[in-house]
């Protein structure tokens, strides 16, 4: 390990930054991101600066305990946010240098790492600089304490830089584990997708629960995590800050930067030159899998192998169907209710069941042709009829969907304590939707097919078009509306002119009819289109 050469590191950082800029300018998504950031960053800056300015006078008179909470919140929140962003970017995007073979045989890896870290910090501060500066200036003017502004700016910059190093080291550490552990390598994408989903659900749920946030913050103020906040409080004359804690925090933060750099160097040396374990995918022609046993004799061989191919691809590369978990994000708001009110809302079984149905429909069928990627010419010339092919895709979504939907609806229904009538109605509506959704999705996927690849993390994948997604959700919403609506009316205790059983049964039946019509016509439309499809 040697000290990075600043000239080379600067060259790498400049080139990385230039590539990011060009890549953003070169795509519609990038332009939208740039425009969004160009609008939101100054707005955030203005809002934060305004709050700091007008709340500044309160700082000098506020209760020290409240100020300590606020200081810990700012420092801890910034560190957690930056660390998380950099961690997941390191794992997914820039944990390894692009064109690594060329770069690593051109310049020492220490210089490349220093350049990549500098570029990552530059990207981050391109977004953070204005809000952090606004916070510092707002506080300095609002409190009349210029030194507070200087201390706030310096501390937040050092904390954010520490977050970059911490996140990058964490990301490299995760990559090292993935490269060395056969289990993690085999299930890497699944672990990543599961962790991302869990994080987003918990984050959204907790962000709406101020009680949970406050409890976490109070716990943090009782721990060394609050010490960096003491640095800020030192600049407020009306608060008796703990100078020892502040000094320790300053030493740890500033001293931690070179230490973090060394840890990143140590990890990069191992990750960039590692020979990753290559998990074997055992195959035996004689072995009968669970899906073989379930499907043989029930469906044609062609239908079975189309379904099995879909499951195998999803298992080996979950990022290809990662988009399908989107409906579950809507459960985050229900989870907020669970956290805030400590009760399981009676609507959650149906919401979960419909999320499962929507996911089952989206996973394999929302882009039937584009999803075949490079194999499409072979699929089209494989003498498989459109009906057989669509049946296989529908089966791939519906079969696991039925199991998941049943487990979610029954489990959450029992937890929510809803009566047997509404529970059966929720289950019936959800199951009808789960069985019908894949066929509806296939039709929308044929109306709006997509063949272009998009970046998902560090992979290039063909994901369904946004229009197909939108139309699918709209149609699914229409067919489940009667069953879901009547269920909602009953569990919310709405006064009904008929017996609840009649209302619930009526809702389910209408949903059943609508789904049968939608799914049946969707299936036929998709099968005919695929059967007569020609490559352009």
């Amino acid at each position, binding site marked *: 390990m040697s000290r990075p050469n600043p000239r080379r590191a600067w060259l790498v950082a400049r080139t990385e930054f230039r590539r990011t800029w060009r890549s953003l300018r*070169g795509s519609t998504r990038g332009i939208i991101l740039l425009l969004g950031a160009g609008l939101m960053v100054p707005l955030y800056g203005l809002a934060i600066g305004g709050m700091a300015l007008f709340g500044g006078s309160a700082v000098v008179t506020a209760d020290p305990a409240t100020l300590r909470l606020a200081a810990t919140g700012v420092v801890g929140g910034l560190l957690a946010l930056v660390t998380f962003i950099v961690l997941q970017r390191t794992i997914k995007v820039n944990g390894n240098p692009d064109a690594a073979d060329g*770069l690593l*045989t*051109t310049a020492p890896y220490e210089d490349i790492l220093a350049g990549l870290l500098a570029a990552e910090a530059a990207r981050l501060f391109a977004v953070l600089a204005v809000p952090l500066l606004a916070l510092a200036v707002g506080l300095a003017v609002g409190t009349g304490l210029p030194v507070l502004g200087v201390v706030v700016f310096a501390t937040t910059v050092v904390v954010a830089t520490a977050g970059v190093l911490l996140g990058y080291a964490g990301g490299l550490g995760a990559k090292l584990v993935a490269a060395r552990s056969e289990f993690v390598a085999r299930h890497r994408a699944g672990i990543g997708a599961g962790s991302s989903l869990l994080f987003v659900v918990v984050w959204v749920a907790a962000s709406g629960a101020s009680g949970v946030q406050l409890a976490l913050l109070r716990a943090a103020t009782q721990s060394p995590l609050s010490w960096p906040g003491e640095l800020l409080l030192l600049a407020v004359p009306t608060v008796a800050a703990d100078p020892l804690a502040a000094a320790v925090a300053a030493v740890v933060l500033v001293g931690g930067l070179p230490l973090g750099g060394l840890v990143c160097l140590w990890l990069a040396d191992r990750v960039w030159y590692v020979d990753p374990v290559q998990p074997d995918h055992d195959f035996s022609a004689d072995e009968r899998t669970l899906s073989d046993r379930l499907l043989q004799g029930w469906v044609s061989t062609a239908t079975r192998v189309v379904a099995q191919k879909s499951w195998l691809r999803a298992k080996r590369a979950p990022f290809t169907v990662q988009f399908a978990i989107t409906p579950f994000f809507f459960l985050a708001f229900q989870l907020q209710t669970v956290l805030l009110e400590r009760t399981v809302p009676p609507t959650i079984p149906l919401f979960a069941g419909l999320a499962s149905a929507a996911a089952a429909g989206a996973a394999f069928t929302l882009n039937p042709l584009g999803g075949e990627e490079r194999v499409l010419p072979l699929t089209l010339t494989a003498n498989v009829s459109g009906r057989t092919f669509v049946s296989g895709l529908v089966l791939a979504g519906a079969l696991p969907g039925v199991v998941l939907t049943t487990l979610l609806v029954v489990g959450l229904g029992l937890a929510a304590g809803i009566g047997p009538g509404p529970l059966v109605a929720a289950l019936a509506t959800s199951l009808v939707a789960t069985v019908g959704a894949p066929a509806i999705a296939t039709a929308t996927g044929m109306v709006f097919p997509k063949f272009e690849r998009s970046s998902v993390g560090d992979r290039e994948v063909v994901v369904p078009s946004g229009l197909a997604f939108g139309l699918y959700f709209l149609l699914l919403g229409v067919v489940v509306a009667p069953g879901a609506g009547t269920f909602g009316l009953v569990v919310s205790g709405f006064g009904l002119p008929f017996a609840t059983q009649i209302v619930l049964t009526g809702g389910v039946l209408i949903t059943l009819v609508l789904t049968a019509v939608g799914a049946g016509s969707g299936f036929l439309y998709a099968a005919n289109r695929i059967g007569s499809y020609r490559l352009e």
Partner: protein
Amino acid sequence: MSPPSPAIRTDGLTKRYGDAVAVAGLDLTVDRGRVFGFLGPNGAGKTSTIRILTTLTEPTAGTAYVAGQAVSDRASVVEHIGFLPEEPPLYDELTGREQLEYIAGLRGHEDWGRVESLLDRFDLTDDADRRVETYSKGMKQKLGLVQALLHEPEVLFLDEPTSGLDPRAARTVRDTISDVAAADTTVFLSTHILPVVEELADTVGVLYDGDLVAEGPPAELTDGVEAGTTLEDVFLEVTSERPEA
């Protein structure tokens, strides 16, 4: 005065991936200024050997020296080598010229005259200010070769350099290999295209199951067997299934 060290020397070089042996105790010497044709069927261990010699991966056992430097000393080896992997390492977002300026900057070898002359030689001057993402496979391959040659390396590692090139571009690449070898650069050339090796290589090594099963000048390898035997025949002969021990 001791004789100059060979450009490449390996002693008992071994690489294992779990239970699989990719390179099995390879002993190899390539003298300076020679073109060494490195042949072998897919999975023979050629890429593993090149990755060790270019410091991208560590050997499980044995030693290797490139330009007199141990491959364990990455920084020293990297100074003396140029490498064109099978997939040219280029950034799509940069123009051809920016890519070369970047690599030249990293090498500390900012000789713009050489950049221009190489661009001209490879017929890339007119496209040098276009983004790499718009280049054809052949143009990318040529740009990759130019960036591997920029700093006039002592040892040049080329992995399938003519793959995907049209006949004219392939001719340029072959001429360039001859020229750099004439200028005392050692070329370690891994390819499946046997006529290229026959034309360019001073020495050929055939790797099979991680072992070097044949080595020598192409003419020597085909001598002593029946008339009309080509390097391809020799290759097929030495890489056929070996009987169980």
